[in-house]
Structures are given as C-alpha cells and as structure tokens.
C-alpha cells in the first residue's frame, strides 16, 4: 500500500480493497518501525490519525466523502495545527501548541485527508539541508549519510521513505523544490498568493508560499486542488478562481514553447546534472514541445538580492518571539530587556540569529538605502527579466539544483550553502510558480528538472510534469531498503 500514489490509493479506497483505517495503521506502523533511520517526523499523532481515518471510511460509506478522503499525509511543522505541537524546527516553539489551524490544514481536512503527524524542517525554514533543525538532521532515504535538502526536508524524506502518501511544504527560496529534487519527488511552489499563508509561521512574508510535495504531478494536482484558493485571513491572498488542476493534466504538449535560460547551464552546474537535464528536455521535445534558448541576465544577482530581502523580512517577523505570549522563555529574567535578549539568544539557533542580525543591519539607519531599497529595485529587474522571457516562451526549464544531495556536514560556510539555491531563489523574488520533478540520477542520487511557469500557470506546469511522467519512470523509482513490509 505504501508504494501507491494518491491517485491509486483513491481507487483502492473506492473499490474497498482496503479501508482508510487499515491504510493509516499501516503507515503508522511503518513510521514506528523505520523513522528512527530518517528522523523525518517531529511529532506523530496516531490516535487522531486513526480517528480521522475512521470518519473518512464512514463518509465514504455514506457518500459524503471529500476528494481526498482517507489519504494519509503529513504537514510540515510550520503549519499551525490546533492542539498539536507546532515547533517550526525551533527550541523557541518546542512547547508551542497552537489554539487554531492554518488555512491549509483546515482546507485539507475538509477534503478528508488523514494527518499522520508533523515533519522535521530547518529551523524557521532557514536552511537548504535540514541540518539547522532543533530536532536533529534528517537523513535522505536515497543515501542516509546525505542531507534530504531543506527546508522541507522532513516532508521530502517522509514521502521518499514511504512514511506518508504526500506532504505539505513551504518554499521561500526553494524549500519545496530543492528537497523534492534531492529526494526524487514532485514538489510545486505555487504563484505567490495562490495558497493561504494564514497559520503558516512567517519567515519572509513577500516570498513564503505553501505547496504540495508528492510522488507524481497527478498527486500534486489533487493536493493543490484542496490547498489553493482565496482566504480573507491572508492579506496577500489572490482573489482568483481555482481551476481543477486535474482537468488539464493530459493536454498535449504540441507546440508548447519551452525556454532554457543559458545562465542556468553555466559554471557551478555539475556536468552530469546538465546531461540529465538535456536528456529530460529531449523527452519533452519528443512530446511535441519546441525548445528555445533564452536569457535571464540577472540570474547571478538573485542570491545576493534574496539575502537582503529575506533576512530583513525575517528580522521583523521573528520579533514576535519575545518570551511573553507563547513559546520559550529564559529562566529567572532580571528585567524585561534581559527577558527578551536571553530568551532569543537561548531559543534561536545560530543560522536564525545570523539572519536576524543581517536583516536588522540591512534595515538600520544609514544602511537601508544601500541594502534594502537597492535589493527591492534589483528584485523588480529580476521580475522584469522573467516577464520578458514569458513573452517568448510558455514554460522555462532547467536544473533545480547544481548538485545532488551532499553529505551531512559537507557545507559549513553559510554563503556556500546559500549558493545551492541559485536556480530556485529568483522564482520566489518574482513570485512565479515552479515545480521540480525527478529527471534522473547522478551518483545514484536523484536530481530534479525545474519547470517555471507564468503567473497562475500551475495548471501548465502540472500538465507538462504529468506528460513527462507518463513517458518516463524516474518518479516511480524508490530507494533501496524502504520497501520492506
């Protein structure tokens, strides 16, 4: 059962081959037995999961079941869950039990999913390796001595290890797509505003976006159907109708114009990944797409631009963690200043503190124009490059990452780590949708093809991904050792 896609599980549930309770108990038993190897979950909620599964089975029998009734998934531990600890991977929120659900959690519950638990992540989603989590690093199921990517590394590892059918993730600079690439999954970052940010713990509010991580583009479309939509409680939510993302999955790709940015194939890209991406593009060409070289001249400036804007927004967002209303508080504060400064020094990890300090510095008097304002201007130029490109092509394709999964501890310098996100970060600055799909193996580890779409063209990305997955089987491969029982 654990190898099946959501689409296959829905058929099995409908045909009564198994019940949601059986499926849920099967997944829970796998987590119990296998997750010590991966550390993909922070919290598992067996009782609530079985109870929800029982309700889903009943709804199915009554004919009132939602579109995803009875499908066991996991939520990244950045989404608030009423009554269930939501840590954001931080000591600061190790004791935080939210009194409400995130909109994504509510909407998916309405569709009938069964939540198995909350997945591990880089602290406050700040990382590309899942090594900054207070709960320890996550191991990549394809090579347990390697990282799963980050920040949604727990979600990616849990799906790849078949410890859930799918999971939610969030993507501020690549945090859905990069771990999806490194774990052999399909991960979609929607257009900014497509999925509600309400109840999703904020990192950089003008960049953050939640989205699905799954075994196939088809599964991602089913999940996005449930997650997307306007939410009055998110002030930047897009007021725009949600199409049925499954309806266009099978559309033909004849004449689809795909652009390859020449800057995405330059130095820094591992040659074997470049070959795999070219082979994947050939496959798309066989399916009818027309390939064209394009240029995104400011590609090299996306990382510098992001590392002003994201820390600046983070420094403001994370000011709420003050030891007063919820979360960690230091022992025996001698005055209010001591309470704030020690709570934050003890509650935040090193990478989070570094980013808060960079952001505070970039926003401080005398430096605001040189850093923050400049970065916001460059951000517009980066967006303009994409807008110009989408006058010529329908979809942009390239590598998701310059390298496959690296070993734990291999990258200790923050700047080197930041550069691992070179192909994913510009998309967040521009607010565009993008998806990573499995496109081969390098050093026996999966690598991803990134597809970038125009604003609100998630349907097109899912369509291209689905057609590609009908013609290839990279997405259907499973790591050795996860398949026992």
């Amino acid at each position: 059962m654990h190898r099946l896609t959501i689409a296959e599980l829905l058929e099995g549930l409908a045909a009564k081959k198994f019940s949601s309770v059986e499926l849920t108990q099967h997944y829970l038993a796998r987590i119990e037995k296998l997750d010590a190897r991966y550390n993909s979950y922070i919290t598992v909620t067996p009782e609530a999961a079985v109870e929800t599964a029982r309700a889903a089975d009943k709804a199915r029998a009554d004919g009132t079941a939602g579109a995803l009734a009875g499908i066991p998934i996991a939520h990244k531990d950045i989404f608030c869950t009423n009554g269930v600890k939501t840590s954001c991977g931080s000591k600061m929120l190790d004791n935080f039990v939210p009194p409400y659900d995130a909109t994504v959690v509510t909407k998916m519950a309405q569709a009938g999913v069964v939540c198995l638990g909350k997945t591990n992540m880089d602290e406050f989603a700040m990382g590309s390796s899942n090594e900054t989590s207070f709960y320890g690093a996550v191991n990549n199921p394809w090579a347990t001595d390697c990282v799963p990517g980050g920040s949604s590394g727990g979600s990616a590892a849990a799906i790849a290890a078949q410890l859930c059918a799918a999971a939610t993730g969030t993507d501020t600079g690549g945090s859905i797509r990069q771990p999806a690439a490194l774990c052999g999954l399909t991960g979609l970052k929607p257009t900014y505003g497509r999925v509600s940010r309400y109840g999703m713990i904020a990192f950089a509010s003008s960049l953050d976006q939640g989205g699905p991580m799954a075994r196939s583009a088809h599964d991602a479309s089913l999940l996005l159907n449930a997650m997307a939509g306007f939410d009055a409680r998110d002030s930047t939510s897009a007021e725009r109708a949600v199409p049925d993302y499954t309806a266009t999955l099978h559309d033909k790709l004849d004449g689809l114009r795909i652009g390859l940015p020449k800057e995405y194939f330059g130095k820094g890209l591992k040659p074997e990944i470049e070959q795999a991406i070219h082979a994947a593009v050939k496959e798309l060409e066989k399916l009818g797409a027309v390939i064209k070289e394009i240029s995104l001249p400011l590609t090299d400036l996306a990382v510098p631009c992001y590392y002003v804007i994201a820390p600046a927004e983070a420094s403001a967002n994370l000011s709420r963690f003050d030891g007063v209303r919820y979360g960690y508080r230091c022992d025996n504060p001698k005055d209010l200043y001591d309470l704030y400064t020690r709570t934050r020094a003890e509650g935040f990890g090193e990478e989070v503190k570094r980013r808060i300090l960079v952001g505070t510095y970039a926003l401080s008097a005398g430096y605001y124009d040189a850093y923050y304002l400049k970065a916001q201007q460059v951000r517009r130029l980066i967006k303009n490059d994409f807008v110009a490109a989408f006058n010529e092509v329908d979809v942009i394709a390239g590598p998701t990452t310059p390298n496959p999964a690296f070993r734990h501890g291999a990258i200790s310098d923050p700047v080197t780590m930041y550069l691992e996100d070179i192909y994913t970060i510009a998309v967040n600055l521009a607010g565009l949708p993008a998806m990573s799909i499995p496109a081969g193996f390098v050093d026996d580890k999966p690598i991803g093809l990134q597809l970038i779409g125009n604003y609100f063209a998630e349907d097109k990305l899912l369509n291209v991904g689905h057609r590609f997955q009908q013609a290839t089987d990279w997405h259907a491969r499973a790591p050795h050792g996860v398949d026992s029982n």
Partner: protein
Amino acid sequence: MSITAADIEKAAKLARIRLDAADVPELSQRLNNILAMVDRLQEVDTAGIEPMANPLDATQRLRADAVTEPAGTDALNVRAAFQAIAPSAEQGLYLVPKVIE
C-alpha cells in the same frame, strides 16, 4: 562595506539578542562573508527603478471595520485559550519582570 564588532553589537541590541563576546569574532567573519556576497548588488544600475515589495504589485487589502468573530464567540474563553500557552499569565494579563519601579 564591512561590518565591525560595534556594528554587530548594535544590531544585536536592536534585535534583542544577547551575544557572548567570545562569539563576536566568528560572527563578524560570517556576516562579512554574507555582506561581501550581497555587495554585488551595487554593480547594478537601478536609477529610476521602482522598489518592489509585492511580486504581484498588490496593495494591502482592507476590510470593513466590523466584528468578524462568529456570533456567540465568548471573548473571555478565546483569551483563556490564547493565554493557556503563555509562559506566565494571571487574571487575563501576561506577566513580565517589573518594568517600572
């Protein structure tokens, strides 16, 4: 631009994060590496370019100034639920160390 120990101490004070003096040298080096990378932005001519705050150039949506809680919501119960997770609360108030002598 390079960041000095004094700059870091000032930023840490503004950000309300206590630093150990022993950590400042390594932190300076790391932050300077980040800022050196970020300094590449200065290469770009941005004269006349409007800063971009929202990817869709959307402005803040406003709502009517009206009560949005569903009818029958008990404000005191909501407050109690919020304060149940506070490190220290009493009689509906959040407690902090004495501010005024």
